[in-house]
């Protein structure tokens, strides 16, 4: 899946890319198991064709989009983003996709649409851990409208110039680079425009640990560990590589800081 170099500010970090092998074998995708090595082993059953994404709620043009139509909806771009997991590790991944804003503009949200909710696939036949009680299935996520419209918010179909591997959220996923990784919903089947802040899977499971915003923030610790530093997967020195300092908004403060002007980020974690 080729993508042209993106002109969106912040979309081309020059940092060393994470090895494809690490990025596609060390994943959190609980529908396929809770160990990070599980998704690559168990995601083979997932059927990504045919695939439709339903757009519904407070929009003038609701409808069902086949994956082939979505792929052609806008020009595919390559975006090299840092990915910071809430667990304290990070990667640098070249995604292929286009700004979610392109789709949002097409479906014309109504004036009272304040949030966007993402619903992901929960198919017990192809996802062996959907029956588990770890989370309330299906996995849902959400963004405020201005976050969803931000040019860095990516609707991704590929990575490393190829279509997404199943374990990375095929056939279509979100990538929100200034938020912890779990905010970027995988294998999306429904995009819903709503007035009230939608509930999100991790917030429902542990509200005091995972807030709605979940912006990368070195100054707001997770209740069980510090978020001040991160381990970059594949950093030179391997085991003995020093952890890096985590940057505010994962280094995208210049691009997204104004979205949160005046907000107490300790309260809105």
């Amino acid at each position: 899946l080729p993508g042209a170099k993106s002109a969106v500010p912040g979309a081309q970090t020059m940092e060393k890319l994470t090895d494809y092998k690490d990025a596609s074998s060390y994943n959190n995708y609980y529908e396929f198991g809770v160990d990070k090595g599980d998704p690559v082993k168990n995601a083979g059953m997932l059927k990504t064709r045919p695939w439709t994404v339903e757009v519904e709620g407070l929009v003038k043009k609701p409808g069902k989009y086949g994956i082939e139509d979505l792929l052609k909806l806008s020009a595919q771009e390559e975006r090299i983003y840092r990915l910071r997991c809430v667990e304290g590790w990070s990667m640098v991944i070249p995604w292929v996709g286009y700004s979610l804003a392109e789709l949002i503009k097409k479906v014309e949200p109504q004036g009272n649409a304040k949030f966007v909710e993402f619903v992901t696939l929960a198919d017990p036949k192809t996802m062996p851990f959907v029956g588990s009680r770890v989370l309330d299935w299906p996995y849902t996520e959400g963004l405020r409208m201005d976050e969803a419209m931000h040019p860095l918010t990516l609707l991704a179909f590929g990575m490393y110039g190829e279509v997404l591997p199943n374990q990375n959220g095929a056939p279509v996923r979100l990538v929100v680079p200034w938020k912890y990784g779990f905010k970027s919903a995988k294998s999306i089947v429904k995009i819903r425009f709503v007035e009230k802040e939608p509930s999100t899977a991790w917030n429902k499971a542990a509200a005091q640990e995972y807030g709605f915003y979940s912006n990368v923030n070195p100054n707001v610790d997770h209740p069980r560990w510090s978020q001040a530093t991160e381990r970059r997967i594949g950093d030179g020195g391997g085991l003995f590589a020093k952890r890096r300092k985590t940057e505010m908004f994962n280094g995208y403060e210049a691009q997204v800081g104004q979205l949160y002007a005046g907000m107490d980020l300790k309260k809105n974690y």
Partner: protein
Amino acid sequence: MLNKLLMHPATKPVVFLLCLLPFARLAFGAFTDGLGANPAEFLIRATGDWTLRFICIVLAVTPLRVIAKLNALARLRRMLGLFAYFYVVLHLLCYSWFDMGFEWGEIAKDIAKRPFILVGFSAFVLLTPLAATSFNRAIKAMGAKRWQLLHKLVYGIAGLGLLHFFWMRAGKNNFAEVFVYAAIIGVLLAWRVWNFARKRQARPAVAVRGSEKPLRTG
């Protein structure tokens, strides 16, 4: 038969080497880049897992000895207990090194601030005097009764270790493995309570015969 095998002079060294296998595998993986994308996390978790496993193993010695009449197992108990300590020291070392870069101030802050780390660290601290008094001379110096009382701490340590693991997994609601360890430790401790009650019941008969000697429980 099994007792005889357990008394064989080669048994201790063989068990010693078996107990070192997990360490050998981890060390080999660490030097050959064979621990996956995040080797630090792998080492920290694996050494924690092995600590819990050795606590289960050492707690199983007495029930097995009594139920299966494998008295010779007692010979191995000290070594198994010391391996639990060996793996918890590695666990703490991996955390201090790979996660905290040996920044002692940060480590102290982390222990004070995060309940699950505080609980794990307490378990390590409590296990230390047990490891330190595992030599025959320590038993003699302390007296068997006091030594035994001290080593009963292991029940509390097992509980703290479980709580540490439970809390670590709580944020992700991922309790399957925690429950397996809890069930094993629960059964091993419940057997002790049951065994203690059973011996207690037998006590009045002894008292009638005028014996003032306290009964020894394992």
